[in-house]
């Protein structure tokens, strides 16, 4: 969490003074008006999926109502409109990521799909027996299993960059872990289970000194942090639309052009070819080479609207506000008797994982749901993280730009009630 909140002279917090109007933001998200179990919805499961602002919902409806057509093939008016909307979405994603060229932006189903694409198209053909892939100890299963599948097939192995008790990667151990056999480094920008913001720039530069490419899983970073892939120096960056206020089923793989060009296609089909005969096929240039079949056009349009929505905020105001809410959550939830917070890295965002002494996370989830509070309970698709802390499951509150300190208070009251019920 960066910086302490500064109180302005009129008593307003610094973010209010800088003009982050959370009540206005909340009005942008229609689902936040509904109630659950007779209580106002307190949605704290944003790391699983974020809610959608009206502008995203409208963009998808508008596309299907007025512009729907297939892309890259029709000469008719609607096809041209749809193609333009799809390619405009690609350009917006390029801008959002700070990529040099829009052909470095591949539309995929989501982060998982992006990682599998890199595993199949980049890693597999280059992987030999005895080679190594370095991942971190705090990875989501989607940044472990695709590499494992490739490693098992080739007799390669996964090595692990460890973390400290507070949930920070031991970057100083990179020197020993990056070897002549390391073919790829794969690391989360932000941990979904702990909220740690990793030093991806340092990791990329250490790997690059040895000529090793780096993939960054940005699924949890995209809704919270400004991203600049060039400054970060990563070779691949993956994100999911639905975690950044866009629709499900659309995501982005950024890849450096020279790497994408050298890669084999992921899936074969229509749209990804230049010429096809029964003897041989030549492929379309990047990024089309990786977009076989009719893509999620409306999803790309919805993602573009989400990027527009997110980009309209001042990043300093947004991150300042989110940091303030997270810091308040650490203090307030941490003060509930019996709570142990899991993940206390110095630099973290948006995620608060915790245990309640003697009470299983699943019971916590059910009981606070009666208060309209949505949190995640379980292993968060990060079993190695659970193993590290010696727990089977945690409860996780994850925040977005529309969450408030009042909602943190409601969660704290809910947790006190959990203790009463199961006491």
């Amino acid at each position, binding site marked *: 969490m960066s910086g302490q909140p500064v109180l302005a002279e009129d008593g307003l917090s610094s973010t209010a003074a800088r003009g982050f109007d959370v009540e206005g933001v909340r009005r942008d998200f229609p689902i936040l008006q509904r109630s659950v179990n007779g209580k106002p919805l307190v949605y704290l499961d944003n790391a699983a999926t974020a809610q959608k602002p009206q502008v995203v919902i409208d963009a998808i409806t508008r596309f299907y109502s007025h512009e729907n057509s297939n892309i890259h093939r029709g000469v008719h008016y609607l096809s041209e409109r749809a193609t333009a909307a799809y390619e405009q979405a690609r350009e917006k994603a390029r801008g959002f990521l700070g990529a040099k060229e829009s052909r470095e932006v591949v539309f995929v189903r989501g982060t998982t799909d992006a990682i599998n694409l890199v595993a199949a198209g980049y890693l597999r053909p280059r992987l030999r027996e005895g080679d190594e892939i370095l991942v971190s100890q705090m990875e989501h299963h989607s940044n472990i299993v695709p590499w494992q599948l490739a490693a098992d097939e080739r007799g390669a192995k996964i090595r692990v960059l460890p973390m400290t008790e507070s949930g920070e990667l031991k970057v100083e151990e990179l020197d020993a872990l990056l070897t002549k056999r390391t073919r790829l480094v794969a690391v989360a920008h932000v941990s979904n289970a702990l909220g740690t913001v990793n030093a991806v720039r340092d990791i990329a530069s250490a790997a690059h000194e040895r000529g090793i490419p780096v993939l960054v899983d940005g699924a949890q970073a995209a809704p919270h942090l400004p991203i600049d892939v060039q400054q970060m120096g990563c070779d691949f960056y993956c994100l999911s639309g639905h975690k950044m206020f866009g629709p499900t089923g659309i995501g982005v793989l950024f890849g450096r052009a020279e790497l994408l060009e050298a890669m084999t296609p992921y899936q074969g089909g229509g749209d990804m070819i230049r010429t096809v005969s029964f003897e041989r096929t030549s492929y379309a240039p990047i990024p089309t080479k990786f977009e076989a079949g009719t893509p999620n056009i409306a999803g790309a349009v919805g993602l573009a609207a989400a990027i527009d929505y997110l980009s309209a905020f001042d990043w300093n105001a947004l991150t300042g506000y989110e940091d303030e809410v997270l810091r308040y959550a650490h203090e307030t939830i941490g003060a509930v008797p019996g709570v142990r917070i899991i993940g206390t890295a110095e630099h973290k965002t948006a995620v608060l994982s915790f245990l309640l002494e003697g009470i299983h*996370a*699943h*019971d916590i989830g*059910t009981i606070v749901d*009666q208060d309209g509070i949505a949190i995640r309970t379980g292993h968060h698709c990060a079993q190695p993280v659970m193993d590290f802390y010696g727990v089977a499951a945690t409860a996780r509150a994850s925040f977005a730009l529309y969450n408030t300190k009042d909602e943190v208070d409601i969660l704290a009251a809910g947790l006190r009630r959990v203790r009463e019920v*199961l006491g």
Partner: protein
Amino acid sequence: MSDLRELYQQIILDHNRAPRNFKEIDGANRVADANNPLCGDKFKLYIRVSDGVIEDIGFQGSGCAISKASASLMTSAVKGKTTAEAEGLFDAFHHLIMGSDAEGDAKVLGKLAAFSGVREFPARVKCATLSWHTLRAALAHTENTVSTE
């Protein structure tokens, strides 16, 4: 709140706090593992069966209040019963949790009727039924770990 009290009935809270038969038993001849990894419920069930009678039964492990209380009450209910009677209890319990009859067969179920509230919480059905499926697997000598997820 009333729904919560229906789910976490006093007897369930009691068996969660102080589970019965919570130990590895002597001379177990049937053992089965239960694991719902998404929830983090993990138990091991030990049974000693002789001449078709469950002479002793115990369990160890960790899980949520519902899964733990269910394992505790299940072991209490089937101890001393024939395997056929245990199968009958499995069916009655399954009907209570999944069926349309809100009361269940009270005479057959006894204390197990405390789980009637689970039907209102579909996400928790797998917690309540985990130990029962594990019992069935142990009696059938199934070696795979049981999961209800």
